[in-house]
């Protein structure tokens, strides 16, 4: 019963509200971080409430006086509700809009990309003001991609609803790809590592030593001639009379090597990922 009664009372108050609402004069919109002045008609004391994103204030005020809202309480963009409770309560709403762009949030993917891949690199930029509000007004963002001294991409996209994006291919040579999004003197930089593709033409050599066979690869490159990153596993397999021995060895300084335990005649092969190397036929010790 009480909620119903309360609801009725509030509805009655609200039905009167438009008449009173006109007594609060607020700007239709304001800019984040800037001062706003409100004027409230009437006389006597009242309670002033300001409710908005990140703020919730209450003050005793004298009606008829101007109220200045400092910029630091209006940093977050969005709608702010002003309620003044004398007898009865009145309310008004105003919007705080984002200020001018101050920074760019820049998402670039992937962070590592094989060379020579089409549509492999993409980025999205969002301009924000100094109070971290998304700037929704169109902003021209310049995207620049450079690998070494070579420029891969240089184009400008205007933000729509606060977002601008690009997509492009990776270059042919391994190394860092500098990716920049800029607007006037604001910029955000990211780095994409362009790495070698699959190993190409894996070649093995081997020789017997005191404890078996020392087998190793020649320097491992991809088909574009980029060295395959160190740490990449090369799997060596030795088959000697139906007995198998395997070693997963990482490439170090461009070469993978392993000590195989085989005294008899053995056939040794190597593979990295899907790429197979040549077979080595080693005679008995």
């Amino acid at each position, binding site marked *: 019963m009480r909620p119903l009664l309360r609801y009725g009372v509030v509805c009655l108050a609200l039905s009167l509200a438009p008449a009173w609402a006109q007594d609060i004069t607020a700007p239709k919109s304001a800019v984040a971080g800037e001062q706003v002045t409100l004027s409230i008609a009437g006389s006597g004391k009242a309670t002033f409430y300001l409710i908005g994103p990140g703020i919730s204030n209450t003050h005793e005020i004298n009606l008829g006086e101007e109220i200045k809202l400092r910029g630091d309480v209006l940093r977050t963009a969005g709608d702010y509700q002003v309620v003044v409770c004398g007898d009865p309560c009145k309310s008004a709403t105003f919007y705080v809009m984002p200020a001018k762009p101050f920074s760019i949030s820049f998402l670039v993917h992937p962070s590592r990309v094989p060379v020579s891949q089409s549509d492999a690199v993409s980025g999205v930029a969002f301009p924000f003001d100094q109070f971290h509000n998304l700037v929704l007004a169109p902003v021209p963002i310049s995207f620049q991609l450079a690998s070494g001294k070579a420029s891969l991409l240089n184009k400008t996209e205007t933000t729509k609803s606060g977002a601008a994006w690009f997509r492009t291919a990776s270059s042919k040579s391994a190394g860092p790809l500098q990716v920049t999004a800029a607007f006037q003197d604001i910029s955000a930089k990211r780095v994409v590592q362009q790495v070698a593709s699959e190993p190409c033409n894996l070649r093995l050599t081997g020789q017997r030593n005191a404890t078996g066979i020392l087998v190793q690869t020649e320097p491992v490159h991809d088909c574009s001639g980029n060295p395959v990153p160190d*740490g990449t596993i090369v799997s060596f397999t030795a088959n000697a009379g139906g007995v198998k021995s395997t070693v997963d*060895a990482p490439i170090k300084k461009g070469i993978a090597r392993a000590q195989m*335990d085989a005294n008899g005649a053995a056939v040794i092969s190597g593979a990295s990922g899907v790429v197979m190397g040549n077979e080595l036929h080693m005679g008995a010790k």
Partner: protein
Amino acid sequence: MRLILPIVLAAVTVVLIAVALTSANATGKTVGISAGSSFLTPKPTTPDQALSNLLLNAKRRNWDEAFNSVSNAQSPNKKSFIQDWTGSYGSLRAFSALEGYDIRPLHITNDEAQMRVRLHWTTPVGPIEDVRDFRLAREGEIWKTVWPKSDMPIVPSQVIPVTYLRWDLVSGGSDDEWGAKNIDAPRVRIVSMNPLDFAEGAVVLGEVVNEDTIPAFVNVTATLVDGSGNAIDEETSFDKIDHILLPKQVTPYRIDFPKVKFKDVKNVRMNIKATLVPASADPVIGVMNQKVDPDYQGKAVLRGDLFNESGQTVNIPHVIASLYDNNGKVLWVADGYVERALLPQTSAPFSIEIPKNMASKVQNFHVVVNQYSMGRN
């Protein structure tokens, strides 16, 4: 009454104690440190009793008493005898405790006996069974165990040049700008997946490859979904996978679903999670002399030797093997822990049991070695 009642109570107490002593499982289970010694140790007048006394003392780590029940006490010194039981170099045995044993006589004469013991060890990675044969000899009225000589490898002093290769991970603070942390997770792929019913549950197994140029920390999760789209169970690869994969490395994985049968499953949802981790390319462990052999019970086992090619001790090696049929399909993923530590430039044998119904179909296998090295994991 003044005397009768105390006498009756005392007598009843003694009878009750005697009943408890003669009942089965009198030793009960011990919690915590297996300390203390028995007030009542039976005289080892039979091989079975002699071995029981030795094993009970070994279980309780009463090394003096255990060593006293060894026949050739001069031959193994006490230190190596204890080391046989307690392990060394931070091996899995060093983390283990003897929990129980089953003794079975193989051959007994008046003066000699051959006994086979199934030792039940509790270890950090789960229970492990170890079958060991003991020889006992009679010395007067009592029997003693003849202790074999220790076969621990002796590593000569040497210098092993190492080109260290490792990846470090620098992660920014939690308050980093949005988009500044643009390092993607490693790219990994499930290259094969084979669902099958096995024993008391369903199993999903296969292989995963790291296609990226950096190490990946991988976990595979499978969700079984019924006809209505509801998840029946979700399990992970747990310890049936090598979690750290170097670039282009392949690992088997197996996911067990106890008490589920595939006839109730409509769909299997696979999820592979890969994350960036600091990692090292060492140690390199070779898997030598791999072959499938029958064991002492006639079961098929995959055997071989692990060879530590690096200069650092591997405390606990873990062997995981994909077993393929003649089409290259992964039939089964088996694994096993090696109890002995792998010292630099030395070998240690391993064996993994192959399920009976698969042994005949196995045409090939791929073995990977996961490892725990103290202070480096």
